[in-house]
């Protein structure tokens, strides 16, 4: 572990490491495709058509992005609403991940809808309150603001600004409850978007319960993503973590794995109920049926069991790999609903497959997220408590007294 000041470790010159070269190439290609997108239109860079107006930018950037950013509301709800204070050290990383996730969802949406200056129109000019998409948009809009306010104390502590930071800290419980309400609404509404297309979505994925599926699976996605993110942070940002974070890390992993195991088990069972309610069992004996079984058994039931085994036998490595499997499972589910099983009756020639430029933009956006996360987490008090602000937080937020980490002061 290094003992240098974070700002001292930052080199003014950009080194030609493999990571920097790869990131540089991704950013350059992303910038090039961005210019093409906003000068040539959707047709210039995508394979979208009237049959397939929503492509990978909706499937991955939006549906997966929102689901995988669910760690913010699950972690803050566990800590502040359900009183599980032992997860407190995981809240700030989860809020940062969620804030960046949602910010990038909105950023990515610009590629799809174009004309960024018209983004406020659905709310302030031509609102369509009877539309599910309106509800999704409004919830994401409000939740992004909520997450920003929840994240701001880290920046204010870094800058040494006390009064507004203290005011926001007092609002923590209210913000958490508001965030949970908004998440409950829009996570499920993303699934509800597909209620309008029963003839387009394969019966194994279509269900009147699809809003419930999206909501429940988002909880598992959020919990798994917190484990996955903390594993990566533990490896690459270890020197930014204080004693409390390091001490609570294993407990957070076991606790979240236990929660994810139960949620995945419940998700598996309600999917079986949906299958039974619609009497769709006979579809399992088809190609789509096999693919559905791969998703349900390999990416829902298996992670649920592996999480349980990891918790039971206290195997952290198993839990961490299971988190990867569970995150992949959520991505697979969103891809199946929005791409693979969507328009399943169309002939192969009319099916959608993304162009390389669509994929490049998605990779570009994920890379931007990683860079911003690293920039913030290596400077602001995300994985440690700022020593100058500890005594001013409400006492209920501090169950565990901490020692400041000498090398992790943000300023």
């Amino acid at each position, binding site marked *: 572990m290094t003992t240098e000041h974070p700002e001292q470790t930052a080199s003014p010159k950009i080194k030609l490491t493999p990571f920097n070269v790869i990131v540089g190439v991704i950013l350059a290609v992303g910038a090039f495709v961005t210019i093409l997108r906003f000068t040539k239109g959707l047709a210039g860079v995508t394979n979208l058509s009237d049959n397939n107006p929503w492509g990978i930018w909706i499937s991955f950037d939006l549906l997966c992005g929102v689901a995988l950013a669910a760690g913010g509301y699950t972690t803050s709800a566990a800590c502040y609403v359900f009183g599980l204070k032992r997860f407190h050290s995981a809240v700030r990383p989860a809020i940062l991940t969620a804030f960046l996730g949602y910010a990038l969802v909105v950023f990515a949406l610009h590629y799809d809808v174009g004309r960024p200056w018209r983004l406020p129109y659905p709310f302030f000019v031509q609102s369509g309150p009877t539309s599910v998409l309106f509800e999704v948009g409004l919830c994401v809009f409000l939740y992004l603001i909520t997450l920003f306010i929840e994240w701001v104390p880290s920046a204010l502590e870094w800058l040494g600004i006390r009064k507004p930071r203290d005011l926001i800290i007092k609002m923590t419980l209210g913000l958490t409850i508001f965030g949970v309400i908004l998440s409950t609404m829009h996570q499920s509404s993303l699934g509800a978007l597909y209620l309008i297309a029963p003839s387009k979505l394969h019966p194994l994925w279509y269900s009147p319960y699809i809003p419930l599926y999206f909501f429940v699976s988002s909880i598992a996605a959020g919990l798994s993503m917190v484990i996955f993110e903390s594993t990566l942070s533990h490896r690459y940002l270890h020197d930014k973590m204080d004693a409390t974070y390091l001490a609570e890390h294993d407990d957070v992993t076991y606790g979240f794995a*236990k929660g994810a*195991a*139960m949620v995945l*088990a*419940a998700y598996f*069972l309600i999917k*079986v*109920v949906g299958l*039974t*309610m*619609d*009497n769709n069992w*006979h579809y399992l004996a088809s190609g789509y049926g096999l693919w559905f079984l791969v998703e349900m058994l390999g990416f829902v039931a298996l992670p*649920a069991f592996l999480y*349980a085994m990891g*918790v*039971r*036998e*206290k195997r952290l490595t198993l839990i961490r790999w299971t988190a990867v499997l569970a995150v992949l499972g959520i991505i697979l589910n969103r891809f199946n609903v929005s791409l693979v099983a969507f328009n399943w009756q169309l002939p192969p020639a009319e099916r959608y497959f993304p162009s390389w430029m669509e994929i490049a933009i998605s990779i570009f956006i994920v890379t931007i997220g990683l860079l911003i996360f690293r920039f913030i987490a290596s400077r602001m008090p995300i994985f440690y408590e700022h020593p100058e602000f500890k005594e001013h937080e409400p006492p209920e937020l501090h169950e565990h007294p901490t020692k400041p980490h000498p090398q992790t002061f943000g300023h």
Partner: protein
Amino acid sequence: MEPGFHTLHDFMLFTKGAVYYLMGGMLLGLLGFWLYLTGRDEDKMIK
């Protein structure tokens, strides 16, 4: 064998009936899973 459904009532009776049986199995299954999941938590409590 796919049962023949002539009315919506037939269909609902069949699927609802199946779900009622399923719910019973689910409750038992979830209970068993919970016991497996938390089976060794007591070890930690003793420490």
